[in-house]
């Protein structure tokens, strides 16, 4: 607040309505004040609007602030970067209860929305695979074959496809750029590099073994969902 008070004592010689200008300046600084390190606020259990504040649960249950404050901050959803929290070991959620699920590992990134107006989407299988089993999405939400499922933002916004989780549990659909994150030219260059690597199989020893039918060669097949 020091900046703001100091401004009131600065002489601005040739500006008309100086005092008004100063007040405006103060106001702008106040509104655009730097935010403190962590200003996340979670409603206590008793005031969440869902639980009966007179019931016994509100005295027993863990408060969101107690559990979520130590985790990587975010601006949306639970105000927690869940993936970062998982990767940095802030949380260590169990992967199975009784018998571990045996499912294939598939780590490939998929570039989507190649012909749309928004930046290209990079869908990371690896991150989703940390939380989810293949069967959670395949094949009822998305077919495994590339281009076989027409993905549409219209459906996503209605809670289908990605919207089954994003907008309900995973980070919400207000965070456009987290999915639409790749410049079109970069995406095309990346696809070209992949094509080149596929033409020379010895040049791509690092790529995970992908079933051959999962990547159709033509990126044009993946459109805007039409």
């Amino acid at each position, binding site marked *: 607040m020091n900046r703001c008070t100091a401004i009131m004592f600065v002489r601005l010689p040739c500006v008309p309505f100086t005092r008004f200008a100063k007040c405006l300046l103060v106001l702008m600084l106040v509104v655009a004040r730097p935010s403190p390190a962590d200003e996340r606020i979670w409603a206590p259990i008793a005031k969440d609007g869902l639980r009966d504040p007179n019931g*016994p649960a509100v005295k027993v249950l863990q408060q969101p602030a107690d559990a979520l404050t130590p985790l990587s901050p975010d601006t949306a959803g639970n105000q927690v970067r869940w993936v970062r929290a998982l990767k940095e070991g802030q949380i260590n*959620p169990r992967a*199975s209860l009784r018998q571990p699920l045996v499912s294939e590992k598939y780590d490939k990134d998929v570039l989507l929305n190649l012909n749309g107006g928004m930046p290209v989407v990079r869908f990371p299988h690896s991150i989703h695979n940390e939380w989810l089993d293949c069967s959670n999405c395949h094949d009822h939400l998305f077919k495994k074959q590339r281009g076989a499922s027409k993905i549409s933002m219209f459906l996503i916004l209605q809670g289908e496809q990605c919207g089954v989780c994003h907008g309900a549990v995973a980070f919400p659909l207000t965070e456009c750029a987290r999915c639409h994150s790749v410049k079109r030219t970069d995406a095309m260059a990346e696809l070209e590099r992949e094509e080149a690597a596929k033409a020379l199989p010895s040049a791509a020893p690092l790529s995970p073994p992908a079933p051959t039918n999962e990547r159709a060669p033509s990126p044009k097949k993946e459109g805007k969902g039409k």
Partner: protein
Amino acid sequence: MTRQRHPLVLVMAAILLEMFVIFAAPPALAEYADVVLNRVAEAAGMRPVIFPHWFHRIRFRCKVCHAELGFKMRAGANQIKMTDIIDGRFCGACHDGETAWSVENCDLCHSGKAGLPPGIFGGHETLGPGRW
């Protein structure tokens, strides 16, 4: 006279606006992804169940419940009966008195206000599951 306002008025206005920006607390909101289960609860004389996703995902990955235990991902797609839970299915897989509290602690899950509609709460809803 009306054109030249006293500067104090402006300062007061600025302060008021600042107070509004700082103290205009958001309305009491459920935590993101809280689920209200009330398809059968209140009809059977119990309060709605509030399921906090945030609490459970700290401890379990999504696939534990949504693949291993058989909870469908789509909001509203699960018909969970108390008899299932007592038999060790769905919530009962953990809420058995060993991993988590047992079913005798009715009020800890059946903790919602009367009359809540089932669905996902906590803001950021699109037309999708949050509005189911």
